[in-house]
């Protein structure tokens, strides 16, 4: 293991060194730092040129300049980082990075996890319903999304998701075609997902049509888009729904203790509906606090599960804890939704909440809730863009690996010994199907940083990608190299982490073999 680590570390270092060296030469060839002075009619342009050549050491051969740069970079190993200066703005690159890395993470984190979650879920269902209409549709859609150019998706999303939607909000009555479309789509998708014989299909079709119609009518009649708060009754219904869903996937509904634990968690959540408003007022709300409360909710869920006990108390505890996540989120969003109307009618928003530009509304200051709402309205469209593109590949990977696992002997054995289909899928198939993903997910996180270059530009988020693009256009090598360096380091680290995960998850693989 130690030998493996050392070998990998050396190899990774070499990869980073060689790639940055080659990139430094290439970028140096591509850039022309004097470009902005070539067409200047300033009378003292010659002096300006001389000054710039001196400032950037352009007389020094590029290879020496690379080692100069590398010298500064190696300083990072003992904490005196010097990634050079963005000469166009006289800013040290290390200072520049601090801001842009945070922005990029804010942009891509949610999108990465949402994409992963949906991709895996849809992939598994599509594998379970192999060669059905649902499977073919999912395959078609994922290839479609996978091949869509980001800039095009983004422009369309802005046109329909922001501009037209905001126009629609002025008078938010759902048109009839919207009812028809939604009811049709949701029920057909639900039918495809559940499958089964034709009686089941008709039942699912009927239930989901009615359900969708009900939800739409509720949203339309209560003007939900104007004031999206749910109220305690609706929240209770949703919480109970989650409790059933989580139990169904986690242990099966026949495990009455688990169901009880989950429902208790839902009940506690509903009971906390009013007290939470006081909590939000008493406590200084901030993201760390919200996350801490979320963790607390999970712990309480564990406790409740343990109290329900049963022959295998941890199963109950797990179910209850998992239920606590959606239930506590519901309470958080309910509070957030209460600010929605204040937000949309704010003088800086003027009834157009969905944003297309930047990471916040300039000069909007207010409570944590107002600013969080603002963050979400700015995150919405770029996140959808990134999810649409990222999720497609997860669907394909998950589908393929699930199918492979489902054909294994141990699945047949599991079925043969009479386990329920849920146990076979969730315990035996799902977990093993995730193993190949462990080698894909870390690498994917890197690619999404790269893919965010265009998304950042189009949605005016100043993150890593835009720092890279802007300075490339401005002939400023230091920030460009910083981007390349970070991308190179992330790439080797991601591959390394992927290998480690793999060996931990799959005992058949040994690293020093």
């Amino acid at each position, binding site marked *: 293991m130690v030998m493996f680590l050392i070998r990998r570390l050396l190899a990774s270092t070499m990869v980073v060194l060689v790639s940055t060296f080659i990139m430094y030469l290439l970028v140096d060839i591509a850039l*022309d730092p004097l470009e902005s002075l070539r067409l200047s009619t300033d*009378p003292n342009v010659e002096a300006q040129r001389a000054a710039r050549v001196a400032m950037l050491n352009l007389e020094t051969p590029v290879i020496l300049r690379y080692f100069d740069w590398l010298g500064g970079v190696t300083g990072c190993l003992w904490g005196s980082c010097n990634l050079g200066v963005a000469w166009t703005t006289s800013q040290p690159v290390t200072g520049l990075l601090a801001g842009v890395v945070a922005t990029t993470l804010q942009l891509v984190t949610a999108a990465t996890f949402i994409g992963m979650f949906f991709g895996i879920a849809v992939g598994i269902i599509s594998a379970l319903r192999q060669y059905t209409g649902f499977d073919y549709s999912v395959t078609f859609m994922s290839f479609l999304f996978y091949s869509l150019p980001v800039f095009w998706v983004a422009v369309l999303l802005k046109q329909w998701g922001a501009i037209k939607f905001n126009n629609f909000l002025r008078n938010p009555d759902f048109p009839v075609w919207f009812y028809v479309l939604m009811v049709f789509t949701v029920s057909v998708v639900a039918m495809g997902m559940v499958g089964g014989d034709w009686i089941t299909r008709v039942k699912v079709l009927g239930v989901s049509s009615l359900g969708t119609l009900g939800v739409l009518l509720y949203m339309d009649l209560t003007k939900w888009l104007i004031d999206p708060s749910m109220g305690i009754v609706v929240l209770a219904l949703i919480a109970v729904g989650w409790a059933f869903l989580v139990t169904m996937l986690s242990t099966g509904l026949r495990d009455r203790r688990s169901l009880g634990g989950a429902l208790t968690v839902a009940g506690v959540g509903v009971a906390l509906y009013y007290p939470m*408003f006081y909590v939000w*007022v008493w406590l200084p709300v901030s993201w760390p606090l919200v996350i801490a409360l979320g963790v607390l909710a999970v712990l309480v869920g564990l406790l409740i599960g343990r109290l329900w006990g049963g022959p295998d108390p941890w199963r109950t505890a797990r179910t209850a804890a998992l239920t606590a996540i959606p239930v506590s989120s519901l309470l958080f969003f309910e509070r957030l939704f209460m600010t929605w109307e*204040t937000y949309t009618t704010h003088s800086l928003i003027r009834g157009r909440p969905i944003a297309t*530009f930047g990471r916040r509304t300039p000069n909007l200051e*207010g409570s944590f809730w107002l600013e969080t709402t603002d963050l979400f309205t700015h995150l919405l469209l770029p996140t959808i863009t990134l999810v649409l593109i990222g999720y497609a590949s997860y669907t394909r990977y998950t589908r393929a690996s699930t199918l492979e696992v489902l054909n294994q002997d141990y699945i047949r054995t599991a079925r043969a010994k009479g386990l329920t289909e849920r146990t076979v899928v969730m315990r035996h198939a799902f977990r093993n199907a995730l193993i190949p993903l462990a080698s894909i997910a870390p690498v994917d996180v890197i690619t999404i940083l790269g893919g965010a270059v265009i998304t950042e530009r189009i949605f005016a988020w100043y993150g890593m990608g835009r720092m890279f693009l802007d300075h490339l256009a401005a002939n400023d090598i230091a920030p460009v190299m910083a981007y390349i360096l970070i991308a190179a380091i992330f790439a080797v680290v991601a591959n390394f982490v992927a290998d480690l995960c793999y060996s931990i998850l799959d005992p058949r693989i040994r690293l020093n073999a």
Partner: protein
Amino acid sequence: MKLKRLAAVAAATVLALSACGTPLDDPDTPDPGPGTDGGVVPGSAVTVGWNQPFFAYNTDTSNTRATANSIITYMMRSSFNHYNPDLELVPDPSFGTYELLSDDPLVVEYTFADTAKWSDGTPVDAADLLIQWAANGGHLNTIEAADVERDADTNYPVLNGEVYFDTSGVAMALVTQTPEISDDGKTITFTYDEPYADWEIGIDVEVPAHVTAMRALDIDDPQAAKDALVAAINDNDTEALSAISEFWNSGFNYKSLPEDELLYLSSGPYLMTEFREAEYITLKYNPEYEGAHQPSIETITVRWNEDPMSQAQALENGELDLFAPQATADLLAALQNIEFAELHQGIEGVYEHIDLTFDNNGPFDPATYDGDEETALKVRQAFLYAVPREEIVEKLIRPLVPDAEVRHSQLIAPGAPGYDEVVEASGVLEYEQQDIAKAQALLEEAGVSTPIDVRVLFAEGNVRRENEFEIMQPALAEAGFNLINESSPDWGSMLGSGVYDASFFGWQSTSTAVAQSNPTYQTGGVNNLSGYSNPEVDALFDELAITPDADAQLELQKQIEKILVDDAYGLTIFQFPAIAAWNAERITNVAPSPISPTIFYGFWNWEIPSE
């Protein structure tokens, strides 16, 4: 049973609490803003889109001369004069006046108005111009630019006790004598060593002198700091000047709102109140401002993104109220589809021109014809007669700017004072209509064998220039020239290398300074990329550079243009199109200027339309 108890408690809590109302602590009502000041409409705000973020309050160092900076400081700092959209210089007497006391030697006196003051209450006065002289003239520098060591972390000059202002200017370099300040500190007099044509834009106030001195010399009192600065300059006190120059070079650069409020003082209508790195900057009305440019809009926010389509969609979504994208047909179409968008289709400071190379043994070089000037001239003339300028403008520019015209003058921008006279006098209108027959006749007269190969350099990948080439090629083929596409992505660094016979690209002008054309046409000038050399032109430019009188300048420019036309130097083609778009429901009275500050020109006239 545990569960029952739990359920009971839960139920009780629900019952107990549902009786109360739900407390919300949102102080989320919109801020009504401060009261009315002058003509400012309380709560009025506009958001402007721009492509590059602000990064320096001192816009005069070698690294910070960027439009991204000057558009912001334009709204924060008053100046002695500014250009209007017709490129005329308009003085602002509410800030200060200037007067030409004598032509030879050239003596200029600047007097500050009583209403000129920084937002910390310190008056703007002679010291603020004096520091600018010290910086821009470079007479107090103790080391040369080439010897300056630069810090590896920041690129700022490392001074080690030396004096070095990291900038350079032409006008102040001609003022070696330290300017004299009157006793009340309101008046300062500059004596030029030789007459200088562009004296009117020779100097203006940049950063506050007292802040520079307070921070550089660690003095707390503004007036004392100012006195120390004036003394240091008058006595050439190297130690103090080193600290001052160091702070001047680097102290005013920041990319988000600095903690030190003195670093963003305002002497104009707006104060910087918020600045988030790479996101936006917010300027609010300066209640202390007593000058003439009283605005009516309380808050101006500038947001940054370089993607034109995303700015257009932000305009449609109400997130931007005004922006000036790079002009393309797609974008124009998108903007025309927005109901409430008002469009300005005008020109910008860059102009396209075609140059012929005189010194590369190519078809336009007399050396090719054994030094026969006459033959080379005829070939050049023939080439210029055949260039389809009108067609280029019609096909490439008018779709963006319907009233675009061919530019006819090398020296003066269309619409700027003197343009019509110069065009009239130069005889360039000979070339107004493309004349293939004449071109053919001239080539025949010259007795050269056709077709003549002409290597043309332009920017590869630039759609407009590639289209220009496509339009030119057949027209010139008819006249007897075989255009060879030598376009390159590295065209900029290939300029002047002699590997091409003709080139077209854009020159950029940021002012109407008459001296800016010297390096382009004078023998051996930095921007003389075509190898053109005519002693007569050289002499006229030398004279122009030291002619302060506008009428005399125009006479010289006419003569120069005439010679350039007679020598068949080359032709100007068009002024770059500029588009500005704004939300007519949110802002009116926008009047973009062709040169910096473009859309921000006349921000004090902007108004929120009454509904």
